[in-house]
C-alpha cells in the first residue's frame, strides 16, 4: 500500500504499474457513456425483440393449448357418436336376427304341419286300400270256400 501511494505521488515522468492519474476519472466517464450508448443500441432493442418473441411464443402456446382442447372435445364427441352408431347397428342386427328367427320358426312350423297332414292323408289312404284289399280277399276266400264245398259235395 505504501509503495503504491508513493508511486502514485511520484513525479509524472516516473510512470509505474500503480500510476493513478486522470486516466481514472476519464475512464469512468467513458464507461458510463458506453453504458448509455449500449443501453440505447443493444440492451433496449434486443430486449424488445426477445420479449416480443417471448410474448409471441406464450400466446402461440396458449392458442395451441386451446386448439388442442378443442380437438380433444371434438374427438370425445366423435367417439360418443361412434359408440352410439355401434349400438344402433347392434340393435338393428339383433332385430334382424330375431325376425329371421321368427320367420324360420314359422316356416318350420308350416312345413311340419304340412308334412303331418300329408302323412295323415297317406295313412288314411293306406288304411282304405288295406280295408279294400281285405274285403276283396274276404270275397275271394268265400268264393274259394264255396268252390271247395261244391267240389266236395260233388265227389
Amino acid at each position, binding site marked *: 500500500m505504501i509503495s503504491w501511494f508513493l508511486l502514485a505521488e511520484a513525479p509524472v515522468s516516473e*510512470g509505474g504499474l*500503480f500510476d*493513478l492519474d486522470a486516466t481514472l476519472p476519464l*475512464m*469512468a466517464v467513458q*464507461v458510463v457513456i458506453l453504458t448509455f450508448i*449500449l443501453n440505447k443500441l*443493444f440492451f433496449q432493442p434486443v430486449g424488445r425483440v*426477445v420479449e416480443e418473441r417471448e410474448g409471441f411464443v406464450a400466446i402461440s402456446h396458449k392458442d395451441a393449448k386451446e386448439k388442442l382442447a378443442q380437438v380433444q372435445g371434438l374427438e370425445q364427441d366423435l367417439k360418443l357418436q361412434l359408440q352410439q352408431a355401434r349400438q344402433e347397428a347392434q340393435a338393428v342386427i339383433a332385430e334382424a336376427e330375431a325376425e329371421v328367427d321368427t320367420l324360420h320358426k314359422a316356416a318350420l312350423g308350416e312345413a311340419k304341419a304340412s308334412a303331418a297332414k300329408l302323412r295323415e292323408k297317406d295313412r288314411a289312404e293306406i288304411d282304405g286300400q288295406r280295408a279294400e284289399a281285405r274285403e276283396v280277399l274276404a270275397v275271394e276266400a268265400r268264393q274259394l270256400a264255396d268252390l271247395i264245398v261244391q267240389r266236395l259235395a260233388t265227389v
Partner: protein
Amino acid sequence: MLLQTLLPLAEALPAPQSMAEETHGLEVGQHFYWHLGPLNLHGQIFLSSWILIGALLVMVIAGTRQMKRKPLGLQNLLEFLWDYIRNLSREQIGEAAYRDWMPFIGTLFLFIFFCNWGGALVPWRLVRLPSGELGAPTADINTTVAMALLVSLAYFYAGLSRKGLRYFEYYVEPTPIMLPFKIVEDFTKPLSLSFRLFGNILADELTVSVLVLLVPLFVPLPMMLLGLFTSAIQALIFATLAAYYIGEAVHEEHA
C-alpha cells in the same frame, strides 16, 4: 486499418515525457503520456480502449440493424449475450430491480471481456508507440479502479434510491456487531474488484511476454489459451460480483 488511422492521431498529441529505456521488448509500468493541461493521461489505454469499444459498437450495430423474430447470424450472438447478461443480473439482483441495472452489468461484462480478449488477440505490437505499448486496457490499474469505483457508486445509489435511509439498516443486520465489518467491506469491495482484474490480466500479459521473450514459437501458446480462459472468467467474475453487490444493496430483508 483502424490502427494506422489512429496512429498519426496518437503522434499528433503532445509528446510523452517519460522515455524509459526499453528492456528488450519487455516493458512494465511505462506509459504513453498525454497531457491535458495539468492532467496526465495514459494514452495507450485510451487508444486501445477506443479501438475495442469501436469493435464492440460495430458488432452491436451490425447485429441489431435488421432484427427479426427468427434470428439470423449476428443477432443470434447478441441475443445469446443479452440472455446471458439478463440471467446473470436476474440471479444476483433479483426479479424486482434487475431491469434497472442490467445495462450497467452488461456493459461492464462486455467492456471487460472485449478489453481482456482484445488485449490478448489483437497484434498490438505492430503499432509502435514512442513509449509504453498498446495492450489490454484492463491491465492498467486506472481502468479497473475506475470500474470498481463505479460499482461502489452504483450499489450505494441502488440501495439509497430503493430504500432511502433504510439502506443503512443493512450495516447493522443481522446484529450491530457487524457494523465495523460492513464498513470495512465498503472499502475492500472496490479494492478487491479492481486488483483482482488488474492482477490477473497484467500477470497474464507478463507471463506471455516473458515466455515469448524466452521461446518465441509454440511454447507460449498454452499460456495464451489459459490467458483467454482466465480473461473470460475475470470478466464474468467482475460482472457477477458487481451484480451481487447491487443485489445485496437492494435486497429487502423483510420482503
